[in-house]
């Protein structure tokens, strides 16, 4: 461990760096990924090139089966490219490089809400008493789980469990947050509330985010940029800047003509690919 680095991790430790000249947080270069399925080679990802800037919120949309999750798993260290390189620039080697919020339920059923939330920090030996406690308390509070800290996951609703996995990921204080359709299984009200929470948590904590979604509303609401992937084998078809000021509100955004234009453009890009993906089947 580097001795000069401070042990304390204030909530706003990393200044947001969005200047285009800064080195990218994530560089994905010429990445291909093939799987062999029943002795046949299946090309999941073909020639992916993508960068995520430091402090950027990048949304990734694409037809189902296009390899979005495979790409996210590579950034999370759970999969390797068949060719090409994936690199994440590490600024503080003590922090986890990334933390994933999975689409499926992933909180540990044998740990209480609080122990789940503090899991990464405890296991990585980063627990430093009051400061760590303050961070966890803060995230539990923000996600409305303070009252449930001694509950076990089986005593929580589906939405609460998903909020807990978001708390776990934020409490880990990763340099890169990877969210794989985190709200896909949630009801509309919970989804709206959690979108706001994630937006606020990201703004306050200045980390880089890769956010996979199939909702174009969600992508425009949350993203600094939206990358559109093609049908399998997945490629980055186009990346679109989302120019709206923050904080954003979905209802007011939706009433602007710019929103309609962006939505239309994304839908045109995605629609072709959804049709292409269907034809292949």
């Amino acid at each position, binding site marked *: 461990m580097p001795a000069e680095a401070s042990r304390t991790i204030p909530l706003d430790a990393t200044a947001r760096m969005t200047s285009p000249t800064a080195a990218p947080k994530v560089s994905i270069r010429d990445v291909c990924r093939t799987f062999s399925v029943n002795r046949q080679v299946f090309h999941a990802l073909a020639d992916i090139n993508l960068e995520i800037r430091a402090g950027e919120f990048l949304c990734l949309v694409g037809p189902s089966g296009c390899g979005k999750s495979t790409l996210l798993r590579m950034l*999370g*260290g*759970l999969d390797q490219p068949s060719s090409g390189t994936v690199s994440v620039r590490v600024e503080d080697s003590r922090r*986890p*490089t*990334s*933390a*994933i919020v*999975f689409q*499926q*339920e*992933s909180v*540990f*059923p*044998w*740990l209480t809400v609080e122990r789940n939330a503090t*899991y*990464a920090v405890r*296991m*990585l030996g980063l627990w430093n008493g009051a400061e760590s406690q303050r961070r966890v308390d803060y995230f539990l509070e923000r996600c409305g789980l303070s009252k449930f800290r001694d509950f*076990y*996951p*089986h*005593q929580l609703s589906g939405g609460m469990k998903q909020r807990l996995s978001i708390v776990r990921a934020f409490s*880990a204080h990763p340099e890169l947050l*990877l969210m794989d359709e985190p709200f896909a299984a949630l009801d509309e009200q919970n989804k709206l509330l959690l979108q706001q929470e994630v937006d606020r948590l990201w703004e306050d904590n200045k980390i880089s985010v890769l956010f996979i979604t199939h909702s174009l509303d969600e992508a425009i609401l949350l993203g600094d940029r939206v990358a559109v992937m093609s049908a399998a084998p997945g490629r980055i078809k186009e990346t679109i800047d989302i120019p709206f000021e923050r904080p954003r509100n979905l209802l007011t955004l939706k009433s602007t003509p710019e929103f309609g234009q962006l939505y239309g453009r994304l839908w045109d890009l995605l629609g072709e690919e959804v049709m292409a993906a269907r034809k292949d089947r």
Partner: protein
Amino acid sequence: MKYQSWISPVIVLVVWQAVASLGLVETRFFPAPSAIFAKFAEMVMTEQFWLDLRVSVVRLMVGFVIGAVPGAAVGLLMGLSPLAERMISPLISMLYPLPKIALLPLIMLIFGLSEASKYAIVAIGVFFIMAINTYGGVQNINKIYFDVAKNLKIPGWKVYLTVALPGALPGIFTGLRLATGVALILLVSAEFVGATEGLGFRIWWSWTVFWVEQMYVGLVIIALLGFTFASLVGLCERTFLPWRRGGGN
């Protein structure tokens, strides 16, 4: 226990008592519950009774621990290491279907009539059940929990302790619950043929001298022992797995 749970045993006892008292059944084979209870009251005053009970409980516990700990360890190893799984699993699959009681002559050949032979037969039965259920427990852990740990780059041994072990605990407890019954069967069988004291021996001996009431007392005590043992495992499960309360995962 709810009072409804007591209804069926009480009815059985009342009917049994009635038909025995009225002479409707052969009391040489089916002595009245009151007669069995009287015999029980008489026996608890003897040293022999407490010796038999103590000897059997010790054999059960020692054999259980000797079998359960390595069984769970082998199950964990098989679950976590594909190499170990490939090497050990065929052996387990071949030996498991063998009725363990068939090994008793061999075990008595090796250990004689000593206590070790009783520990060994109980331990062997418990070992296989624990190995298989623990292995199943590890297999049933959702892979996503390992993904969470791997993504956060948690060191391997901590993953074993905080993911594999707690994740396998439900399987381990299923094994323990099943093993209590098997352990009792094997113990009593071994005591029938290869012991000079213990509850199993007392039942067998009662048969040879036709002390039917004493035989029934032995049966009741073994039933109570099995019930107590299973309840203890259940208590441990509720204590150590609070997260299972009110439903699984």
